[in-house]
């Protein structure tokens, strides 16, 4: 890992912790953004963590860009020494894989896809070496995922699976982005899963849909009354495969304002995880079934 700093015009500094994605890069990036927040540098207006990088927006009328850069560089060693451990939450997110709505959409945009004769799931399963779509779906939800970035549009989470690099699923984005994606589509691009928070354009492959709203500008959803965005970087997600009946049942609960996502508080320690991936993931999943 080699940290690279660059100015984004006169108002931003972009910091790339690593060119490639890894949990180490994510943790260092998150530690650095926490260090920036804690140090209260005058002139900082926005702190935006990303997967393996982050961005600071600042007011150059308050602090010269070179001074801002020097402040950030000072924090790098602090961040490196920081414990790669956090108290966070694990959330069970229901997913209706192979649903009729994303299926209708992916058929409409077939000419923009690498494999016009199949579905996104069939394509993803094949290029990742799975014999069946079901096996691929199993690999997608078997282990938990880290929310490594929130952004693109309105509270959209990017998620990175908690498995060894050899077991990471990789799927390219559409050849040309779609102009439409159903709201709450569970998507996939590169090594990241995502949930489309709103309907709109998108380039990620479409695997399924969740009935659980994650962005509500009107703040009517029971668990989004305090804030309209559900996810934050560092959240852990466990996909829970559901069928149509369960999807419809949850949707009714959401509409009635009675749905509450299943959430548990957990500790995540990167070193412990690297030593025992299976054991750590088992413990994380267990937390959802206690209490």
């Amino acid at each position, binding site marked *: 890992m080699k940290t690279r700093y*660059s*100015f*984004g*015009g*006169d*108002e*931003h500094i*972009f910091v*790339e912790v*690593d*060119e*490639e*994605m*890894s949990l180490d890069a994510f943790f260092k990036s998150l530690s650095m953004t926490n260090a920036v927040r804690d140090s209260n540098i005058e002139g900082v*207006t*926005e*702190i*935006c*963590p*990303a*997967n*393996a*990088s*982050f*961005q600071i*927006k600042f007011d*150059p*009328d308050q602090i*010269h*860009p*070179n001074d801002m850069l020097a402040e950030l560089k000072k924090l790098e060693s602090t961040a490196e020494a920081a414990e790669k451990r956090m108290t966070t939450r694990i959330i069970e997110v229901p997913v209706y894989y192979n649903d009729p709505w994303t299926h209708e959409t992916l058929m409409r945009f077939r000419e923009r896809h690498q494999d016009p004769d199949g579905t996104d799931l069939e394509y993803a399963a094949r290029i990742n070496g799975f014999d069946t779509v079901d096996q691929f779906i199993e690999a997608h939800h078997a282990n938990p995922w880290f929310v490594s*970035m*929130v*952004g*693109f*549009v*309105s*509270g*959209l989470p*990017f998620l*990175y699976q908690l498995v060894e*690099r050899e077991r*990471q699923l*990789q799927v*390219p*984005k559409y050849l040309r982005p779609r102009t439409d994606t159903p709201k709450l589509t569970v998507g996939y*691009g*590169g*090594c*990241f899963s995502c949930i489309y*928070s*709103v309907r*709109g354009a998108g380039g990620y492959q479409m695997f399924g849909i969740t009935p659980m709203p994650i*962005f509500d*500008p*009107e703040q009517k959803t029971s668990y989004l009354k305090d804030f309209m*965005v559900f996810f*934050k970087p560092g959240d852990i997600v466990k996909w829970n495969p559901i069928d149509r009946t369960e999807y419809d049942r949850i949707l009714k609960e959401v509409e009635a304002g009675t749905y509450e996502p299943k959430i548990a508080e957990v500790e995540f320690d990167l070193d412990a995880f690297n030593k025992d991936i299976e054991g750590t993931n088992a413990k994380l999943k267990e937390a959802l079934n206690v209490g």
Partner: protein
Amino acid sequence: MSVKVIKPGLLTTVQDLGRPGYFHLGIPMGGAMDRLALRAGNMLVGNDEDAAALEAVFMGPELAFEADAVVAVTGAEMPIFVDDEEQQGWTAFEIKAGQVLSFGFLKSGARAYIAISGGIDTPPALGSRSTYAIGALGGVNGRAIAAEDVLPLGQAGTSKTGATVPPELRRGPGSPAELRVLPGLYWHRITEAAQEHFFEDDWTVAPEADRMGYRFRNGRPLEFVEREQPFGAGSDPSNIVDGCYPYGSVQVPGGTEPIVLHRDAVSGGGYFMIGTVISADMDLIGQLQPHVPVKFVKVDMDTALDARHERAAQIDAMRAALR
């Protein structure tokens, strides 16, 4: 105190100076694309500079006033009418209850700002009235204005009809428009030849130009420095591991058509960027029509900061002239 929308125009939204502070969640600051024009309009009608006004793209709306008000139209140039009487741009004028404000065809620029005394008083969302349609935030129910909408107005301050912004303090893009860019971010991903011809080429604004970003075409494609793509980045040489996008950053998907992200920017994604349009030139982009010629001009940080100070001085001069 309100204004009724008879015709909305092509795409007219409520905008103020935006909602900074939520970009880390994918909610952009938004706000007027031409902030100087918005400030000027508000100064002319006696509002706080960050009051909400209407941003009308390419075509003006038709508005019926239900109370007396002072109005100023800044930014893009289009004939302005109160009933049948033509009014001057960048100048405060009076409009009486029962009169109708309407517009002729666009002459220059792209976005007109219609500031009304008291400001548009739609409910703020996350501290701003700016319309962010993608997230259904702000404005009128999170969308552009529509016929029959009734826009509430706030309490008017004091203003002088006939007050005008001196012509030398109005600012619009030249032809070709020059957009100054500070190279950086993933600048090293393209070859030296590409680094040169990006600034040599004549670009034109593509039809895909909106509040999220402006796309440009007709320049030569950029060649990439060869590398093995990093894990998680995706297979195209223009892909990176999804990261944050600065406002004004210039991304070039596939190396072909640059896109400059604007006020309603997506906060991040997987395309490399070659640099960032300096803050002083962002307003100019909001006044570019599709198909107009554009040159990108390479600058360093000192030039970017000087330009920023010049722009601040221009706003100060405007404040002094209208005091």
